[in-house]
C-alpha cells in the first residue's frame, strides 16, 4: 500500500519537475528574446534623449511610504529629488513613525507645516499633519497614523496630483533615468495601466551623489545568491509573463501606475502582506471584468536598487512574508483559478502560480524527503536517487546560468572579470544549501498562512468612488502643473 502510494508520488514528482522546467525554459527564452532584445533596440540612449527634449513625458507623483526609516529616509529623498525628470512630485507618507523620521525630514528639507485641501478618493488612517518643503516645492510630507504600507500608499494617492504615480520603497534607490524610461511607455500606450521595472540588489554597489555608479559583487555568498535570484526572477520570469500579457507581479520597490486606473480598481488593499501583487491581480480582474482594453508590462529598463538582507534571520523573515503574501493574494482571488472569464490569467497564469510557485517549495521538500525515505526503505536505488537529485540541481544551475548570462549583456553591470567569475560560481553553489534552505522556509510559511493572516478578516472594500471623476474620463490631473516659464 505504502509502496504504491510512494510510487505514485514519484510519478507526480517527476511530472511536476519536468513540467516546471519545461515551462521555465519556455519563459526564459521568450523573455530573453521578446522583451530584452527588442526593447534594447527601441530605446537606445539617443532616442530617449530626443523625446525628452521634445516634452514627451507625463508628470509623475512618487509615493514613498515610510515607517521608522530615520536612518535612510533623508538620503532616499535626496536621491529621489535628484532624479532626471522634468516634472514630478514626491509624497513621503510617514506611517505612524515613532522614531526620528519626521524630525529628520523637517530639518533636512525645511518643511513647513500647512493645512492641505485634500481629496478623499480612498479611505486611509487619520492624517495628522501635512508639510511642504520650502526648499523643494515638489516635496510633500504626510504624517499619518499607523495603518500599514497599503494604507500609506492610499493616503499618498489622495495627495497625488499627477496622472501617473510611482510606488517606491523608502530604501530603494532609483536609477537616474528610471522614471523617464518608465513614464514614456505610458505616453505611447494609452491602455497601459502599470509598469514594473527591474530590481537589483544594492549591496556593495558603489554609490556616488545619490546614484549607483558601479555595481559590485558583495562579499557574502548570501547576497551573491540573491543577485542571481533577482536576475532570474526579472529577466526570465517576469519578462516572459509580460510578453504573454499575464504579468501578475509588479514589485513594491518600484512600480509605475496610471492613477485613474488604480483608483477605479479601488486603491491598495489594506491587511495583506503583499499589497503590490494583490493590486496587480486586482487590476487585471477589474479590467477583464469591465471588458476594457488594458496592458500591464514589465520592462527591463527602469532600474531600482534595493538593499537585500545580508543575514539569514532577515532573509528568512522576508521570504516567509513574501510566500505568505503570495498565498494570501492567490487565495483572495481564488475565483480566478481555471476561470475562463479571466482568459489567459485564469487558465494559465494563476494556475501556474498556484502549482509551480506557491506549492513548489512543498513539493521540493517532499521530494527530498521521498528520496531519503526511498533510499532507507530500499525501494529506490541510491544511484537513481542521487542521479535524480543531481539532475534537479544541474537544471536549476542552468536556469541560474541563463540569468547570469543576461547580466553580461548589460554592459555596465559587474564589469570586472572577478565579479563575473564569482557570479558563475554562485550559480552552482546556490543549489548546495541556499535553495533548500529557502524551500524549507517557504514550506513553513505555507503552513503558517492560516495562522499568521494579520488582518485577514478586515477586508478593504473594493470600488471606493469618493472621487469626482466619471469613469472613462480624461484624468483631470493631466497638465495639473503650470508649464515652465509661466
Amino acid at each position, binding site marked *: 500500500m505504502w509502496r504504491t502510494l510512494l510510487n505514485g508520488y514519484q*510519478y507526480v514528482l517527476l511530472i511536476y519537475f519536468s513540467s516546471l522546467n519545461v515551462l521555465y525554459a519556455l519563459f526564459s527564452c521568450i523573455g530573453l528574446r521578446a522583451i530584452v532584445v527588442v526593447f534594447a533596440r527601441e530605446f537606445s540612449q539617443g*532616442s530617449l534623449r530626443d*523625446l525628452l527634449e521634445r516634452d514627451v513625458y507625463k508628470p509623475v507623483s512618487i509615493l514613498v511610504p515610510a515607517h521608522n526609516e530615520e536612518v535612510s529616509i533623508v538620503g532616499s529623498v535626496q536621491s529621489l529629488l535628484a532624479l532626471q525628470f522634468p516634472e514630478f512630485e514626491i509624497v513621503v507618507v510617514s506611517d505612524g513613525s515613532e522614531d526620528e523620521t519626521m524630525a529628520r525630514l523637517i530639518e533636512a528639507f525645511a518643511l513647513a507645516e500647512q*493645512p492641505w*485641501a485634500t481629496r478623499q478618493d480612498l479611505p486611509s488612517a487619520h492624517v495628522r499633519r501635512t508639510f511642504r518643503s520650502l526648499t523643494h516645492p515638489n516635496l510633500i510630507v504626510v504624517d499619518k497614523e499607523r495603518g500599514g504600507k497599503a494604507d500609506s500608499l492610499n493616503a499618498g494617492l489622495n495627495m497625488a496630483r499627477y496622472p501617473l504615480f510611482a510606488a517606491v520603497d523608502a530604501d530603494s534607490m532609483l536609477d537616474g533615468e528610471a522614471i523617464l524610461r518608465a513614464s514614456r511607455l505610458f505616453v505611447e500606450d494609452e491602455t497601459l495601466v502599470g509598469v514594473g521595472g527591474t530590481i537589483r540588489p544594492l549591496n556593495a554597489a558603489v554609490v556616488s551623489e545619490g546614484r549607483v555608479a558601479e555595481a559590485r559583487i558583495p562579499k557574502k555568498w548570501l547576497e551573491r545568491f540573491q543577485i542571481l535570484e533577482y536576475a532570474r526572477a526579472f529577466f526570465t520570469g517576469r519578462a516572459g509573463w509580460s510578453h504573454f500579457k499575464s504579468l501578475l507581479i509588479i514589485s513594491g520597490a518600484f512600480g509605475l501606475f496610471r492613477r485613474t486606473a488604480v483608483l477605479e480598481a479601488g486603491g491598495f488593499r489594506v491587511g495583506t502582506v503583499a499589497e503590490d501583487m494583490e493590486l496587480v491581480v486586482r487590476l487585471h480582474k477589474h479590467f477583464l471584468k469591465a471588458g476594457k482594453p488594458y496592458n500591464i508590462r514589465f520592462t527591463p*529598463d527602469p532600474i531600482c536598487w534595493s538593499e537585500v538582507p545580508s543575514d539569514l534571520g532577515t532573509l528568512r523573515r522576508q521570504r516567509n512574508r513574501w510566500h505568505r503574501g503570495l498565498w494570501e493574494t492567490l487565495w483572495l482571488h481564488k475565483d480566478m483559478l481555471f476561470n475562463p472569464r479571466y482568459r489567459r490569467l485564469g487558465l494559465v497564469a494563476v494556475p501556474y502560480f498556484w502549482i509551480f510557485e506557491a506549492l513548489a517549495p512543498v513539493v521540493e521538500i517532499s521530494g527530498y524527503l521521498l528520496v531519503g525515505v526511498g533510499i532507507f526503505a530500499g525501494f529506490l536505488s541510491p544511484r*537513481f536517487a542521487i542521479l535524480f537529485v543531481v539532475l534537479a540541481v544541474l537544471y536549476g544551475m542552468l536556469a541560474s546560468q541563463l540569468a547570469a548570462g543576461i547580466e553580461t549583456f548589460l554592459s555596465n553591470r559587474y564589469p570586472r572579470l572577478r565579479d563575473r567569475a564569482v557570479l558563475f560560481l554562485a550559480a552552482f553553489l546556490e543549489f548546495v544549501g541556499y535553495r533548500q534552505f529557502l524551500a524549507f522556509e517557504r514550506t513553513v510559511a505555507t503552513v503558517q498562512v492560516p495562522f499568521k493572516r494579520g488582518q485577514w478578516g478586515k477586508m478593504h472594500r473594493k470600488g471606493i468612488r469618493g472621487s469626482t471623476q466619471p469613469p472613462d474620463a480624461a484624468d483631470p490631473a*493631466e497638465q495639473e502643473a503650470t508649464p515652465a516659464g509661466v
Partner: protein
Amino acid sequence: MWRRYGDAFYTLLTLAVFGFETIALGALSLSFLLGKATGIASTPVEGILLGVVISTASALALLGLYLLSYHFVSNLRDRWQAEHLDKWTEWWIGLALTGPGEPAGHAPDRRPLPRVAVDSVLSLLEAVKGEEGDRLKEALAGHGVDRWFLRRARAGHLTARLDAIEGLGKARLPHALDPLLGLFHHARPVVRRMAARAAAGTLAIMAPEPGPDGPHARFIDAIKQADLQPGVVQESLLLLETRAGPILRELLADPELSDSLRWVALETIGRLGLADMAELAAASGTHPDPELRAATFRCLRRLGSVPEAAQAPLLGAVDDEVDFVRVQAAHAAAFVEPEAALAALEPRLEDSSWWVRRAAAASMARLGELGVASVRRAAESHPEKAAREMAVQILLEADVLTPAAARLATGVA
C-alpha cells in the same frame, strides 16, 4: 546600456540547450512511467537519467564557457571599437570640413563601412547640418549605407530592421521618407512606432514642397491611415520641429479628421507653443466630444493666449457639464480679460470637483491684483469650507500667505 552583438547567438544557444533538455526530460519521464508501469527493471531508466545528467552538465559547461569567453572578447572588442570610433570620427570630421579627397583617410571608396564608422557618422549628423552635413550624407550614399539600411528596413529580421530604421532616422535621408512611410502599415506595433519617429525626423529637414504629392501630404496621408497610438503620433509630430506648423494646419483644416488625430494636433500645438495657431485651435472649443473641448482649452492655456472670438465660449465652458472640461477651461481663463474671467471663475470655487476648485482658485490668483484680492476674500469669508480651504492652499503656493498665516486662517493649530 545593452550590447548589441552576441546576444542573438546567445539566445539561439539557450534555445537549443533548453530545447534539448526538454526533449531529454520528456524521454526520461516517458521511460520512467513505462518502466514503472510494466515492471521493467529500473536500469534502462537509470541509463537515460545518467545520459540526461551528463548532457545537462555539458550544456552548463558550454553556456558557462560562452559567457566567460564573451567577457574577454567583449572587453577587447569594446576597446577596439572605442579606438576606431575616435579614428573614424576624426576622418569623418575631416571629410565634412574640407571636402572629399583631401584628408589622408584609411577608408577605400566602395568597401562597405564597418558599423563603428556608420555609428560615428550618424552621431555627427545629429550635430551638424548644412554643407558639412550634406557632405557626410553624400559619403554615406557613396558607401551604399543608405541602400543597406533601406534593404534591411524593408525586409529583414526584426532586430536588424529596427536597427536600420533607427539608423535612417538619424541619417535623415530624403529618399528614405517613402520607404519609412510604407512601414506605417507593418503588422508589428514596434516597427510602426519606430518608422513614425524616423519619418518625422527625416521630414523635419526636408524643404517644404506644397502640393498634394509633396512629402508633407504623403506624410499626412500615412498618419491618417496608419494604426498608431495617439501618443506615438504626438511624438512624431513633435519630432517634426519647424515643419510641424504647416502640417498641423493641414490636419486641422480637414473637416473629416478623426477625433483622435484632432486631439493629438491640439496637444502638439500647445506643446510646440505655436501661438499663431491659437485661432485655429480654438475652433474646437465647442466640439461635441468633451475630450476635444478639454484639449482645446489645454492648448490655449499652454499657448498663454485666448483669441477674442474664443473668449466667450471659453468662459461658458467654465460651467461645462463635464468636470475635466471645466478644469481646463478654468485654467485657460487666466489668459482672458480679468473681470469677465473672475465673474466666471468665482462660482467655481464651490464646485463639487476638487480639481475644478483648484483650477478656478489658481487661475484667479493669476489674474493680477484683482484676482488675488478675490482669492483672499474667499479665503476669509466664503461660506463653503472647501472653497475657503482651496483658496488658502492657492495663496500658500503663490507665497502670498505664509504657512503660519495659513494655519491661522484655517484654524489648524
